[in-house]
C-alpha cells in the first residue's frame, strides 16, 4: 500500500493506493493521527486507487471519523471502487460517512 499526502490551506488529501489490510493499517492510522494532532481537522481520503479494505482498515476510518467529528472537523471519503462501495453499503457505513464520487466533488464540502 502507498499513501500519498497532498496538503493545501483548507484540507489534507490522502490518496490510498493498493490494499489496506491487517498488515499495513497502522501506517494509515499513524498518518491520520499525525494530522489530527497537528490540528488538520479537514481530511479527505481518496480511495480511487484502493483495491481492498479489510475490517481493520475500516476501523481506522471509523476512528478518524469519530475523532475529527468531536473536533468539529470534516472526514470525507471519495472514489470508492465498486467492491469497496458494496462493503460500505452492507456494513451501513454509507450512512455515517460523507462519500463522494471523486476529489473534485468532495472538495466542495470544505
Amino acid at each position, binding site marked *: 500500500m502507498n499513501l500519498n499526502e497532498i496538503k493545501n490551506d483548507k484540507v489534507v488529501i490522502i490518496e490510498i493506493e493498493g490494499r489496506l489490510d491487517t498488515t499495513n493499517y497502522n501506517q494509515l492510522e499513524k498518518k491520520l493521527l499525525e494530522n489530527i494532532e497537528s490540528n488538520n481537522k479537514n481530511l479527505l481520503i481518496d480511495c480511487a486507487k484502493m483495491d481492498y479494505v479489510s*475490517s*481493520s482498515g475500516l476501523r481506522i476510518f471509523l476512528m478518524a471519523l469519530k475523532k475529527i467529528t468531536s473536533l468539529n472537523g470534516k472526514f470525507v471519503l471519495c472514489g470508492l471502487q465498486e467492491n469497496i462501495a458494496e462493503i460500505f453499503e452492507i456494513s451501513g457505513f454509507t450512512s455515517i460517512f460523507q462519500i463522494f464520487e471523486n476529489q473534485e466533488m468532495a472538495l466542495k464540502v470544505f
Partner: protein
Amino acid sequence: MFNPIKIIRSKKGLAFKLITSIFASIALIFLVIFLYNYDFSKSIVEKNLKMNAENLTRNSVSQIEKILYSIQKIPDNYAKIIENTDYSKETLEKILQQVVEINPEIYGAALAFEPNLFDKNEKYFMPYYFRKEGRLELLYLGSERYDYFTMDWYQIPKELKRPVWSEPYFDEGAGNTIMSTYSVPLYRDFNGQQQFIGILTADVSLDWLQKFVNSIKVNQTGYGFMISQNGTMVTHPTTKLIMNETIFSIAEAQNSTQLREIGRDMIRGKSSFAEIEYHNLTTGQLSWIAYAPITVNGWSIGIVFPVKEFMADVNTLSLRIFALALAGLIIILIVIIGISRSITSPLRSLSHASKKIAEGDFNVELPDIKTKDEMKELHDSFVYMQKKLAEYVVNLQETTSAREKIESELRIAREIQMGMIPHIFPPFPNLSEIDLFALLRPAKEVGGDLYDFFLIGEDKLCFAIGDVSGKGVPASLFMAVTRTLLRSVSTIDGSPSAVVSSLNKSLSYNNESSMFVTFFVGMLHLKTGELKFSNAGHNPPFMIRNNGKVEMFEITKSIPIGLFEEIKYTESVVHLQKGDKLFMYTDGVTEAENLDKVLYSTERLVSVLQKNITATTKQLIQCVDDDVALHVDKYAQSDDLTMMTIVFYG
C-alpha cells in the same frame, strides 16, 4: 536443537599437501641445479681435455720430428759427400764405416749402386757395414739371390726422387729392436744432367721412439701409440701388438667401424680428436683418441684419453653435491613437517572443539595458541564465536521459552474462546422443528468471529453471527465481550433490535480503539416459523427456500455495533416455510484469498448453495468449506471464517 555436523576430513590433509607441494618443488629445483652443474662441469672438463689432447699430440709430434730430422741429417750429409767425391772402393767403405761408427743410433748402413755403375763388370755393388756383438762388420750384399734393385728400400726412393723411411721391421740380429731404414737417393752430375747413381741407407733403431711414445701417460690408464704408413703398430704399451697387428686388424677384432675410420684418417695424415667407444684392451672403457701425423715419415701418433678418469672428478663433485642436496632436502622436509604440524595440530584441536560446540558443549576448552599469527587470530575468533554462541543460545532459550509460554497461553485462550461458543451438534436432539450446524475457524490461534444460538423459553431460538474488526487477540477479546453481553441482554420478551441496540450501547461506551462488530441476530419462533432479525452491518444471510430458490436478505444499511452509543437499530420479519434453510456467514468466506489475491466472491458462494439445496446443514457447510479450500489452495487462511445453517422443519 543442534544437528551434529559430520566433519569429513580428507585423507590427504593440509600437512600432506604442504609437504608434497613444497618438497616436490624444492626437490625439482635441486635436481635442475644438479643436472645443470653436472652438464656444465662435464663440458668444461671436455673442453680442457680437448685442449690438453691437442697440446700433447702437437708436442709429441714436434719432439719426434726433431729427433727424426737430426737422424736424417746424418745420411743426408754423407749422401752429399758421396755425390761430390771422386770415390774409390776404399773411400766409400771408409765413409760407410764412419756412418755407423760415430752414430750410435745407426745400426747399419749400406751403399747400393745402380747396376754396373761402379764396375762395368760387376752388376752389383752394395757394401754394408753393421754392428755385430759390439764390433763393426763389412759385408758385400747384392747377388743373383739378393737382387736389391727390386727391393722397396731401393725402388721407392729412386722413383720418388727423395729420401724415404721404410716400414718398420723387427731385426733379431741387431739387438731385438724395431728398426726402420732411411734411404737417400744419390745423384751425380753427368754432362750437366743429374743422374741417379744409387741409394745410401741407414738402419735406425726405433728403441728411443718406443721409449718416448711409451712415456706418454695420460691420467692413469691413458697411453700413446704409433702406427706406420700402412697402419702397423709401431709402438704400443701392449708389446705383443707391435709389428703383429695393424690398427685395422684391431678394429676388425673389436668390430669397430669407428676405429677403422680413425685408422684411415691417421694414415692419410689427418689430425683430429675423436670420441669413440674404443675398447681399451685393459680397461674396456670409453676413450677418446687424439691423433696427428708425423710428416717426416708419414707415420701417425695416437694418444688414448680415458674420458671416465677425467670425468671422475666431475662425478665425485656431482656425488658430493647430490649428497649435500639430499641432506638439505631432509632438513627442509623436517622443517616443513614441523611447520605444518604447528599449523594443523591447533587446526585439528579447533576442529574438534567446533564439533563439541556444535553438539552444544560451549564450555569446551580451546587449544592454547602461543604464537601471534593468523592461527592466534583464528583462535581468538573461535573464542569470540564460542562466547557469542553461548550467549545466543541462552538468549534463544529464553525467547523460546517466552514464546512457548505465549503459545501455550494462546492455546488455552483458544480453548476458552471455542468453549464460549456452542460446538456440540446436533445441539437440540429433542427438537424436531429445527436442525442447526455451525463452523468457526480462526485465521490465528484466536479470532474475532463469533456465532451463538440458544433457546429462549420453549419455542424461541435466538441465534447470532458476528465479525469483530481485525483479528487475533484484540479481536478475540472484543468477541468474548460481545458473546457474553449477548447472552445477558437476550431476555424472553426482548426483540432482536433491542438486543442489538443494547449490545451497541454497551460496546460503544469508552471504545477508544473504535473496534466494531458486524452483527446479525435472529429470533425464530419454532411453532410458527416467524423470524425476526436485526442486522448491524453484517453480510446479509441467504434464505434457501424449499423450492430451491436462493434469496439474499435485504441490506439494512445499519452500521456495525460498538461505534456510536445512540444508534437505534431496526428489525424485520420473514416467515420460514417447512424445509426452508438459512445460511449465515462472515466475510472470511467470500473474501477468502488465494495466492493471486483473488477473492472467493459472493457469486461463487451462491452457486455452491444452489448446487446443494438438498444437502443437510452439516453437508452444506462442508461443501462450502471444501470449495473455499479449493479456491485458497496452499495459501494461508487470511481471515477468520464462520458459517452457520439452520433448517426449519416446522
